[in-house]
């Protein structure tokens, strides 16, 4: 494992955040399987080291844009279980008052500009957030999360071109989990993925997305450089999604072998492997880590129970929030 953060507290927080994502997803999956959740959701399980390794290098004023597979980014950027589960269940106390659901959770207090249900739909938004930082002279960095499948969208090439021309502080984080929905990545992507960014003069990297320290070490370095105006950057993070494209994608033998899933889960799991490393380094033993997980599972259960009994938004909210109010005082001449 690569070493990045040198402080025990940071290691344990990264471990905790990865477990929080895994536990959140286990509960979300259970809510779907027990027919308690409306609609569908896309599990981040298996990819935890990517979101945590990156978001641990960011502050609350740094922005991220997320994807349909976005719970991991949301948790890693600091979101709270209770408001997330309320959102998944369409409840009033959800992050978006139940109006967005799993695929649109936004948490602007932690700099999460929102998940996006259009594959590649947030590439412009992340780059625009970086443009705003540059125009306003702030040193915020924006990270654009997207999958290997989204590299087929033309928008990526339009915005990378502008980001590179204008040296914008944006990091394109491509989570390559090997599958573009129900199709192997090699069937949809010609050539190399990082080479796409290199063609625009963007420095590109490929990193083991199952190694949280490697991801964090690289991101810390790139964020520091982006703050100094040396961006943009492109990172391909090699990872794996444990579930199907979404929770309902259960019989997937036709596109992915069970043996392959087993190999990743048994030998490449980012949480298990980081836990082993923490024990080897004498930072935490198995009991400590189990106690941490138990506590997180109890938190999650309490949040799920709360969300299940929380109230739905009142019907009067259906046409609220179509338009943001504009203070009439600002529309007067001289204002």
């Amino acid at each position, binding site marked *: 494992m690569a070493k990045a953060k040198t402080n025990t507290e940071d290691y344990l927080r990264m471990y905790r955040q990865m477990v929080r994502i895994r536990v959140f997803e286990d509960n979300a999956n259970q809510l779907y399987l027990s027919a308690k959740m409306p609609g569908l959701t896309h599990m981040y399980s298996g990819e935890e080291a990517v979101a945590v390794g990156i978001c641990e290098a960011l502050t609350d004023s740094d922005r991220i844009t997320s994807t349909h597979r976005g719970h991991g980014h949301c948790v890693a950027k600091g979101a709270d279980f209770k408001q997330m589960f309320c959102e998944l269940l369409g409840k009033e106390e959800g992050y*978006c008052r139940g109006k967005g659901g799993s695929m649109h959770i936004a948490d602007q207090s932690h700099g999460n*500009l929102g998940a996006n249900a259009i594959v590649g739909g947030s590439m*412009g938004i992340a780059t625009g957030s970086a*443009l705003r930082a540059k125009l306003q002279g702030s040193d915020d960095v924006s990270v654009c999360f997207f999958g290997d499948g989204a590299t087929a969208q033309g928008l990526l090439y339009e915005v990378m071109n502008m980001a590179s021309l204008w040296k914008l502080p944006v990091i394109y984080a491509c989570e390559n989990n090997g599958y573009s929905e129900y199709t192997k990545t090699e069937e949809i992507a010609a050539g190399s993925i990082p080479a796409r960014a290199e063609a625009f003069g963007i420095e590109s990297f490929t990193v083991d997305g199952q190694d949280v320290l490697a991801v964090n070490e690289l991101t810390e370095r790139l964020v520091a450089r982006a703050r100094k105006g040396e961006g943009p950057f492109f990172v391909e993070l090699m990872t794996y999604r444990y579930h199907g494209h979404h929770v309902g994608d259960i019989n997937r033998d036709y596109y992915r072998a069970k043996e392959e899933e087993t190999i990743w889960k048994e030998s490449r799991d980012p949480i298990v492997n980081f836990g082993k490393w923490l024990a080897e380094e004498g930072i935490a033993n198995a009991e400590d880590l189990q106690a941490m997980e138990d506590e997180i599972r109890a938190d999650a259960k309490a949040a799920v129970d709360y969300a299940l009994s929380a109230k739905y938004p009142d019907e009067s909210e259906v046409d609220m929030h179509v338009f943001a109010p504009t203070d009439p005082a600002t529309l007067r001449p001289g204002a």
Partner: protein
Amino acid sequence: MRNITLSQAVNEALAEEMRRDPTTFIIGEDVAEAGTPFKVLSGLVEEFGTERVIDTPIAEPGFMGLAVGAALTGSRPIVDLMFGDFIFLIMDQLCNQAAKAYYMSGGKLNVPLVLRTNLGATRRSAAQHSQSLHALVAHIPGLKVALPSSAYEAKGLMKTAIRDNNPVVIFEDKLMYNDKAPVPKEEFLIPFGEANIKRAGTDITLIGTSSMVQVCEKAAEMLEAEGISAEVIDPRTIVPLDEQTLIESAKKTSRVIVVDEGHQSFGITGEIAGRINEKAFYHLDAPVLRMGAMDVPVPFSPALEDITVPTPEGVVQNARKLMSGEMIHAA
């Protein structure tokens, strides 16, 4: 009051608002030194610099996406889309991203952004540079849509659009850029959702948008010579729509023609006619008539193009028919 062109009016509005609010910037193709092909932005880059008048590559979805991201994080971008026809290229960013962010986030994120573009045929520019696509945008909840009908409206509506906290699409009529109108030197804004009664009348109401306001005014003059008193109303914004003023006029005159340069089918004319039918039916002496552009791609040949859009003569003919009762039983 001085007379200035629609182009100068837009330029003044942008300059005033950019001086007022340092978070505003213009982004689009050839907006800086070129000042756009219509020269509407001439001089702005000299005053505000290339940091705030930003030339982009030819990548409409890309720069529209950047503007949405900048708007979500504290800027007020003014996006310049060279031709209204290019709106098809940016539909995801405009309709899936900008329009829905405030609602999907339960009111936490908003997108204060202006998309300025144009509409209008008869410039001999053929099917991909002549469309009037405002109905397409007005259909999407979360977007406001302004249709200035003269230099005065172009300035007042633009200033309001820039201060509005939502995405606003302004369609300027590209044939009117050199048309002059009286515009006060003193600062003024035109509120959204307030129709303008351009001319009072008692026998028939002509509702016109954008370039069609002129068409309705000419028709009203011609009708006056025949002893028919036409009221001309310009809604100025179609989202929000000042339904009340339109309905009151319909109730007063009992006959209405709605004239708009978008295609007639599934368009603005049908929407306004529908609302009047629902809310003023028992006051009407004739069906509300729609006059939009023909449902054909805009043809290049002048011989063909000119017959695709409503004309004052066409409005007069239809008004006569409505007045004589001829169309009451129209199929």
